[in-house]
């Protein structure tokens, strides 16, 4: 038997013996969340790592990393297996409640404001879409829960072992949760929601408009009439109050605060539910584990709500921003364009004006000379006058002096070229 094989066999034997003796003791001390068999495995792995360290097979750093990774992964896997389903159930419950809430609001508004037939058709379509979204969200949230619990568990382990302080662990969990929710829930849910929006937009909405027989803005307003502020709306329509008074009367201050409070509360509720379970499992010391678990996860879940909200807002704002950005760019081009075009137009106008001035002056001076030459019977002055006019056309008179003409005239071979 080779030396290495013998060493391994011995190491396993020692580790097995240590684990066998220590596991029941440790298991009793730490409660029943982790079984004796699991502790046996942890202790066995730990003993093997200690022996590696003692025999120089691993140095201290290698041994520490190995021990931590192995233990952490095992705990994370185990916790995820046990905790992910209840977490997923909680997330699905929350998602369903949110979708039902949206459905209920739409349903009530439609019932109050639309003709019964249209309202019935619309709410039936909404019911189908809500169910489809619930189903899609449930699938997505199951996947999200596994990922969130797994990554959160590792972070809480880091906190428990002192590698991360409370703030670091909270931030890490919040970040991991946001990333997972954005990736799994928002992105996938968005696709389904868009499909459904298109589906309903293509039939019921069209019928609503046709039957209501009013334009879209009025249709949208009509849905508000049925809300709890319909009296104020009617006052506004009757002209009893103006738009500004209307807004003031109903009061829009505090909206952001109220919505955030609701979001935060729901997040904290979910956090407390599954955070405590994770915490208690990982750190089987009553109270401490629950406190750490629920607090850290509550923070993460409040972050989850905010993250979903922020993602949707960003996604939404990006469309508005794209149009606004385009407007800004075009506006800048327009300013530049008008300035440059105005400059070029100025150059063109000046050219026209200069040309006209020069042209008119040549014509005027030319006729004055022609007139002067006619009165004084001086053909050379008349020729100068014509020459002046011809400057506008790049031409020249045939004869600028009498002598030139006389020579030409008396020569029988001369040809007048016109």
């Amino acid at each position: 038997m080779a030396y290495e094989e013998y060493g391994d066999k011995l190491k396993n034997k020692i580790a097995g013996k240590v684990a066998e003796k220590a596991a029941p003791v440790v298991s009793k001390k730490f409660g029943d969340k982790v079984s004796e068999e699991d502790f046996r495995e942890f202790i066995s792995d730990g003993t093997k790592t200690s022996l590696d360290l003692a025999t120089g097979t691993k140095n201290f750093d290698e041994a520490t990393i190995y021990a931590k990774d192995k233990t952490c992964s095992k705990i994370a896997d185990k916790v995820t297996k046990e905790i992910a389903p209840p977490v997923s159930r909680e997330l699905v419950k929350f998602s369903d409640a949110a979708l039902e809430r949206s459905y209920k609001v739409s349903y009530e508004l439609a019932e109050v404001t639309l003709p019964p037939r249209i309202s019935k058709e619309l709410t039936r379509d909404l019911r189908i879409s809500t169910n489809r979204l619930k189903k899609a969200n449930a699938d997505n949230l199951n996947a999200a829960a596994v990922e969130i619990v797994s990554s959160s568990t590792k972070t809480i382990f880091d906190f428990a072992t002192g590698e991360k302080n409370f703030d670091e662990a909270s931030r890490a969990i919040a970040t991991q949760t946001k990333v997972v929710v954005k990736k799994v829930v928002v992105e996938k849910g968005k696709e389904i929601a868009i499909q459904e929006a298109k589906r309903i937009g293509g039939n019921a909405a069209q019928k609503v408009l046709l039957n209501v027989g009013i334009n879209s803005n009025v249709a949208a307003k009509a849905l508000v009439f049925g809300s709890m502020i319909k009296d104020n709306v009617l006052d506004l329509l009757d002209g009893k109050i103006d738009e500004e008074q209307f807004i003031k009367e109903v009061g829009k201050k505090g909206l952001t605060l109220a919505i955030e409070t609701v979001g935060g509360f729901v997040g904290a509720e979910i956090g407390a539910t599954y955070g405590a379970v994770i915490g208690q499992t990982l750190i089987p010391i009553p109270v401490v584990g629950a406190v750490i678990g629920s607090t850290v996860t509550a923070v993460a879940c409040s972050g989850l709500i905010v993250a979903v909200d922020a993602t949707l807002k960003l996604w939404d704002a990006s469309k508005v921003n794209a149009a606004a950005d385009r407007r800004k760019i075009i506006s800048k081009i327009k300013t530049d364009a008008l300035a440059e075009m105005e400059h070029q137009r100025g150059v063109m106008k000046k050219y026209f004006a200069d040309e006209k001035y020069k042209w008119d002056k040549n014509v005027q001076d030319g006729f004055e000379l022609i007139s002067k030459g006619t009165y004084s019977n001086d053909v050379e002055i008349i020729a100068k006058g014509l020459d002046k006019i011809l400057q506008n056309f790049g031409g020249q008179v045939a004869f600028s002096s009498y002598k030139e003409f006389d020579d030409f005239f008396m020569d029988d071979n001369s040809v007048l070229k016109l």
Partner: protein
Amino acid sequence: MAFPIIPIAYGVGAVKFLSDVWKADEYAREARHVNYEAFTMIEAAARRLHSQYEKLESTMMKLANRKKGIMSVTLKDFIGVYEKILKIDFEEMHTVDSLNSLALRPENLSGINQMISISGVQMSDKEILGTFLFSWEYGGVSGAIKKDARINLDIAYTRSDEAEVIAHNTDTARIALEGIDDKANSLLTLLARLNALFLKSIQYTSEIIERRGLNKRNYSVDDKKALMNCVNFAKTLADILKAPLFDSNGKLSGQIDKTLSTGNEYIKKMQAVK
């Protein structure tokens, strides 16, 4: 603790809804107004250009007729009279062709055609309700309506900016046509005045030629001076008829081209922004 907040949030949310819808309405109204102004601006500029173009076409037609008249009547008369005593080399020109090439045509201005393809901006009914029904996906019913209206308003302003540049360029073209028309009118007047003097000169010298006959030695100094004037008028008119309306080196045409293409380049640049 937090549950009583939910109905309040709904109440306040409903206010937000109405406020956003109201804002959307304002945006839609503003967008319609901006679009209306933009298209009015373009239409008015195009109408002015078209009217100026018609005016120039009429002036150019008059100019072509006047040139043709001088060429085929007055200069022919001159040649008929003077051919008895002088050898004359005269090449007739195709005046109408050369005149037409001077005119700017609206179809050469790209902006006009591009503007025609720009349609009105209005949110369709389907769009607005389709968006409304799935409000949670967009962060709120009213938010979605307001957002779309806001986008349309931005698009309207964008088109309005494009329209302003196109209208400016169209007006530049009109100014160029105005300049050409002005010049053509001046030339019409000049030709009329010179032609009147030339006709008198032909009439006067034809009597001299009639009187003195073919023997050049019979002509006195004054006779020859009269003939010299007439020949100089003939050469002057012939030169004017042959010359282009504007500078022979094409400097003005170059400037007009440059001015208009500056605008066209900017219009293309604007339309390339996605």
